[in-house]
């Protein structure tokens, strides 16, 4: 479900704040209705700059992913995890995040449902399944 939000400053802070409430913060173009993640300033379809703030449920289905056997710096202590691209529920929008506890592809078939659990300064947008 989409919920209207009041105006805040700082698009990334807004995205992070929403993630910590298990939501995905997005912009809906007033001119053409196209939906984009919060951090985009102009509509990618019509270049409009007026948006309606919307909050989407922080949930979706896995589109693709990788299991990072060799973790980059900052993720060495994360255990076995996946970086996941997911389609946000009830929206034509994709996002990506960090999903801990994934060891093999059998743990994460394409189409698996995932949820946003928060935004971690160290690991970014954190997901669970």
């Amino acid at each position, binding site marked *: 479900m989409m919920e209207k939000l009041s105006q805040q400053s700082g698009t990334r802070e807004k995205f992070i704040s929403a993630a910590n409430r298990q939501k995905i913060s997005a912009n809906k173009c007033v001119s053409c209705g196209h939906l984009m993640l919060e*951090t985009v300033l102009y509509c990618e379809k019509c270049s409009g700059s007026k948006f309606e703030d919307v909050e989407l449920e922080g949930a979706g289905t896995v589109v*693709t992913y*990788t*299991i990072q056997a060799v*973790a*980059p710096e900052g993720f060495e202590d994360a255990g076995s995890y996946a*970086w996941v*691209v997911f389609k946000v529920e009830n929206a034509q929008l994709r996002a990506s995040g960090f999903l801990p506890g994934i060891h093999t592809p059998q743990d994460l078939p394409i189409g698996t449902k995932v949820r946003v659990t928060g935004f971690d300064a160290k690991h*970014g947008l954190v997901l669970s399944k």
Partner: protein
Amino acid sequence: MTEKVCILGAGSTKYGKLNESIIEIALGAAKDAIESAGITPKDIQAGYISNVFGVADKQVHMAPVIMSNLGISHVPGLTIESACGSGSVMFREAFANVAAGFYDCVLALGVEKVTHTGTAHSTTLFSYCSDFFYEGGNGASFPGLFASMARAYLTTHKATEEDLAHVAVKNHENGVLNPKAHVRKKITVDDVMQSPVVASPLKLLDCCPFSDGASATILCSEEFAKKSGRPYVEVIGSGRGASPAAVQGREDITTIPSTVAAGRQAYKMAGLAPKDIDFAEVHDCFTIAEIIDIEDLGFFPKGKAAHAVRDGATRLRGEIPVNPSGGLKSKGHPIGATGVGQVVEVFDQFTGRAGERTVQNAEIALTHNFGATGASAAVHIFRKVDRK
């Protein structure tokens, strides 16, 4: 565009782990290119330099430093960064300025030095080329990002990890014939499949190495090239394209929009179609990238390239040889230099300098190079000029 643009000279250092400073590496390639063109630095009217991580060797603002060390400190230089696509994007700017008539003769040089930072830190540096807030910051390395594209491709098109391995095997087969290649070693499909997983489904031998190195070309007007009396190659097509910076922003993860757009522009300028290309140097940072590239460039229908590679269509004596140099996978990937290195390979092929890896009877070649996961890309098409 008013002027025809030609490549009069080209040179590369060896790619690999190099001990010299980044400036010394750059100068080595510059000297080779200048000598192969039969010119002196005083003929150069502008310098175009591509580099990404100069800061790792304590040097940014690289163009004036290189020009000064060539003894032409009065010649204006420009340094360009576009991640792994820096070389081709910079080459396009050099091409455009000669084509527009601003200059008759320019140096286009790419250089990189990262291996001294170690694999872990190099991986981190490269991740800064992603849309970091969404990708690197959420734990995706570059192998991880391409692995996500590989999983999407394998799922959509019913290809296999073994199909991907054939790209690596073919490029190493070619790289063995290239004395300047970073990894000159033949490998088998089993070697690839048994190599350690880096980011599933990609394994170590699906990935190109981190490399140091430099490549340089001398671009000039047709009049300048003809007066030289030396062999040259004509640039007949040039295209640029762009894609959403983050993989999540693409409607179809099994194609790279910037490649499609750049290819269409280059084909249109050249008045040619994919069937007219005799060989191609494409951006194979990971095996899946080459599969997607050769579909996006129109050599194979969507979903068919993996099978074509497995059947040998892209080998040195195949219907469309791809990466006769060994590609990024075997020749190496000094990211600021890679796009220029592809042009050096075309020059070498068309001027009799490619030795055993020469593509027989080739007259038209294409280069393709992109930045990050394809957020930026450039495609160029070249024609062999017969000086007989």
